[in-house]
């Protein structure tokens, strides 16, 4: 094929420009360190980069939510820890009050101290989380969730938990009603109580379950009759008489019926009545403390009545204490879960960043050798151009 002068010069210039552009492109890649600077460099890789970036940004946002949850749960756990310590002190005071040699004044003193601890527990229950909410506000509450009213402490909040999105749904608050107002009354299965009009000579203990399969869940009553110096008792079930009718009473001996065993101590008067009812999960810690403090501060009570107060009070305090411990364990479990979610989020973020880097970043070694090759190619083109263009017949026709 004929080579024409104009065309060959034009083709060479084109070639030089192309090589220069290639060199520029290789240099750009080296300085930015990215293989994919625009979507057209590698569309599939660019889409991968975009998705990896979205995952990474999301993991960062989720970690912020996780931090909020962790700080809230740490505060809840600390609050419940403080509450259990206060309850421990109440228990010690109540045990001390059982000392038979104490006078009314000393017992009243103990009652006053129990009242003080009750106020402390109420302020713990109403503790805020530092940003306008309340730790025990459940699904939301406007003002402090626990309100001290004339009929005791009531809960003005919604039950359940507020949650924050952090990959999983993690808790931000704790259910106040479940923590403070929902212990199981009695010994967990049944509640023993002395009727209001009883005499001051006898008291009933908390009772125990001897045969779980024989439990019926009905209401029971133990009626005492004293006739001619002989004390007998009858057990009534739902108001109707049972087989245990007019049995002789022995102080300290267990009275067993339908899988339950209770013990009445002291000397019951005629017509004394003790109720045994199924327990409900609605025991309010504050009600217990109010009752115990009130009874201790009341004067002129017999030793049997004091013993009843101490026995029922210890039973109820232990139930509330157990409930608080369980809630504290739940908060601690949340913290464990938060730790594992955090680990997972950190892994997600790392893998997203790795994915992004794999798709987008330049292989330095490859790029450098590429650049060298292009550079020497450009060099060769320049030198051959300068050699060839000097050759012309006119040079020789002088």
């Amino acid at each position, binding site marked *: 094929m004929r080579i024409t002068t104009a065309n060959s010069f034009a083709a060479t210039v084109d070639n030089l420009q192309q090589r220069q552009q290639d060199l520029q492109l290789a240099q750009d890649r080296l300085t930015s360190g990215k293989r994919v600077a*625009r979507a057209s460099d590698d569309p599939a890789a660019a889409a991968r980069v975009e998705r990896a970036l979205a995952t990474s940004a999301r993991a960062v946002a989720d970690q912020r939510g996780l931090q909020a949850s962790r700080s809230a749960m740490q505060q809840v756990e600390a609050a419940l820890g403080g509450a259990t310590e206060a309850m421990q002190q109440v228990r010690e005071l109540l045990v001390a009050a059982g000392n038979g040699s104490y006078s009314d004044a000393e017992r009243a003193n103990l009652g006053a101290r129990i009242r003080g601890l009750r106020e402390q527990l109420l302020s713990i229950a109403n503790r805020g989380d530092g940003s306008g909410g309340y730790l025990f506000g459940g699904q939301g509450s406007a003002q402090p969730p626990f309100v001290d009213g004339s009929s005791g402490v009531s809960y003005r909040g919604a039950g359940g938990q507020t949650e*924050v999105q952090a990959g999983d749904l993690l808790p931000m608050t704790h259910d106040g009603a479940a923590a403070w107002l929902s212990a199981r009354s009695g010994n967990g299965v049944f509640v023993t109580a002395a009727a209001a009009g009883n005499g001051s000579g006898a008291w009933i203990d908390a009772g125990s379950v001897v045969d779980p399969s024989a439990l019926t869940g009905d209401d029971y009553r133990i009626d005492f009759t004293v006739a001619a110096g002989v004390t007998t008792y009858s057990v009534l079930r739902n108001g109707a008489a049972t087989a245990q009718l007019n049995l002789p009473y022995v102080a300290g001996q267990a009275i067993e019926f339908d899988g339950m065993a209770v013990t009445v101590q002291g000397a019951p008067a005629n017509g004394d009545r003790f109720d045994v009812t199924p327990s409900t999960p609605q025991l309010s810690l504050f009600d217990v403390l109010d009752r115990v403090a009130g009874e201790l501060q009341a004067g002129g009570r017999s030793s049997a009545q004091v013993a009843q107060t101490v026995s029922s009070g210890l039973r109820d305090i232990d139930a509330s204490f157990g409930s608080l411990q369980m809630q504290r364990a739940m908060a601690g479990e949340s913290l464990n879960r938060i730790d594992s979610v955090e680990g997972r989020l950190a892994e997600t973020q790392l893998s997203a960043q790795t994915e992004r880097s794999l798709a987008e970043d330049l292989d330095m070694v490859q790029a450098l050798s590429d650049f060298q090759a292009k550079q020497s190619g450009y060099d060769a083109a320049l030198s051959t151009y300068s050699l060839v263009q000097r050759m012309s017949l006119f040079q020789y026709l002088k």
Partner: protein
Amino acid sequence: MSASALFSLGTKAMAASYSALATTGHNISNANVKGYSRQQVELATAEGQFSGAGFYGKGVDVSTVTRAHDAFLSREAATAGSLAAMDASRLDMLRQLESVFPTGEQGVGHAAGEFLNAMVDLSARPTDAATRQVVLARAGEVADRFAAAGAQLDVLQQEVQETLKAHVAQVNQLAASIAELNQRIASVLGLGHSPNDLLDQRDQALADLSQKLQLTTVEADDGTLTVFIAGGQRLVLGTQVQALTVEVDPTDATRSALGLSDSGFVRQLQLQELGGGTITGLLRFQNGDLVDARAQLGQLAAALSGKVNEQQALGLDLSDPPGSGAPIFDVGPAVALPNANNAVNGAGQFVGRVGLTVIDPTQLLASEYALRADPLGAPGVWQLTRLQDGLVRSIGSGDIVDGMRIDVGPPAPAATDRYLLQPVTRAANGMKRVLDDVRGLAAASPLSPSVATTNTGTGSVAALRVVSPAADPQLTAAIRFTSDTGDYSWELRDRVSNALQSSGVGSWTAGTPIALNGFELELNGVPRSGDAFSVGKTLYPASNNGNALAFTALRDAALVGRGPLSSGGVGGGSSITDAYAAAMANIGVRVQGARSTADISGAVATQAEASRSAKSGVNLDEEAARLIQYQQSYQAAAKILQIAQSIFDTLLDAA
């Protein structure tokens, strides 16, 4: 036999050599002129004369000057150059389009993701004003980025228009010069010799013109060339020129189209008829890639805005008393553009009316639609063509297709009316944040669940979602399980009066939500007989974050491009960041494709040009050799004269 014969031989030889030298000199001086064809002197032997002792030759004649020119190669080079110019101009514009969809943190998808991520912070602290301010700031960022991308697309459109005008002006100039050259060539054709330089100039003008617009030529008997463009429209006929103009596209007033002015009447040129050239590349970019880019961007904007506003309306804000949330975003409207040639009444207004309303923004597709009356003439039936993939459907007025409702008339359009429906094209340009008060963010859910404390089973609430704005917070739903296997009875009672509104029974299985009163309740664990759950009005909306949690779930929700499933219902689609990644990759693939097409057509054009110039171009070495050759023959011819003169002198001396 006389001396004068020798003189005339020498003279003629010298003249022939001289004209060959002149032509070679002409070739050397024009070696670098574009489109110059190498010229060659054609020498012919003069006829011999009979003289009784044989035929004696009479020397050499210069018959004509020809140019080395192959019409086929020239035409091939022009056509290949035209295609290469078209691909190059489209690639150029696509490279600029690519910057509207950047990767990484500058992109629109990242901004949308960050806005939804800010909702995580809102769910952690729903009452905190600073957190709410951050959410609103991110919302403003999203709207700004969409609007800026839309504005960039408008700038590209403007650029296309300006460049078209410039190229069309050049086309008209070149056409005028071709007409003038036609006239000059025709006027000298009768002289019997080809006007090589004029022909070269005309060929170069044609090559320049075919860079702008692909053309075909037909040579007439009088030597003029008729130039046709766009599949048969004549641009130059002899000495008459028709002007190319840039018109407003009748289907969409923001776009440009080509027109050919034919004695006062402007004929529209259709894009499918234009073959190649820079102008065609620009028009293909405008009508194809730019429209698609606008549609994809608009689809993202409309879907995000629609879904976010919908979720806002399902929640409660912080105003006093709390109301359902106001919209956060506003986007450009869905429009139905009437064709400029549609029927008008006496006052110049269009007779027919077509309305377009967006019903479900998550089902909008990234396409424009063409609407016309049914070609078979059925009344009340209209033909809808989806321009992205060509799907043709028949619809009636009020039908809902692809997430939008099309209302045709009243008054009904004429049978020849055409409409261009643009549900998403202008959405991104008009996107802005319309909520500025931080208290307006609806973080709270109007309904909250509660679990009775006396429940004996392990059932607990996994999630409560409000799914319909018709959920009535005045009604409390009480659900009580009647068996251990998931049968339950439900009641809806008025919250204040406890009057029973409705009741019923149902059966729950793990994993399916219980749907009542516009909410869906999902339970974990196993509820036992006698367990009770209730869903009622949120008592303390200020510290509730149910709707904020629903917003965070939008990060994964399929927001964009859902469609009807074969099993009924609506499904499919992708999340907002995935949809942006797909749009960005789509543009990237176009650029890649355009780049390889431009490389290929550029290589073909270079090859065709090399072939043409191999035939027609000047090689300076060759011309140098010819110079020597003709110089020698001139010297030899001068020698003949010298010898003839010495013979004559000898004759004179002898006399």
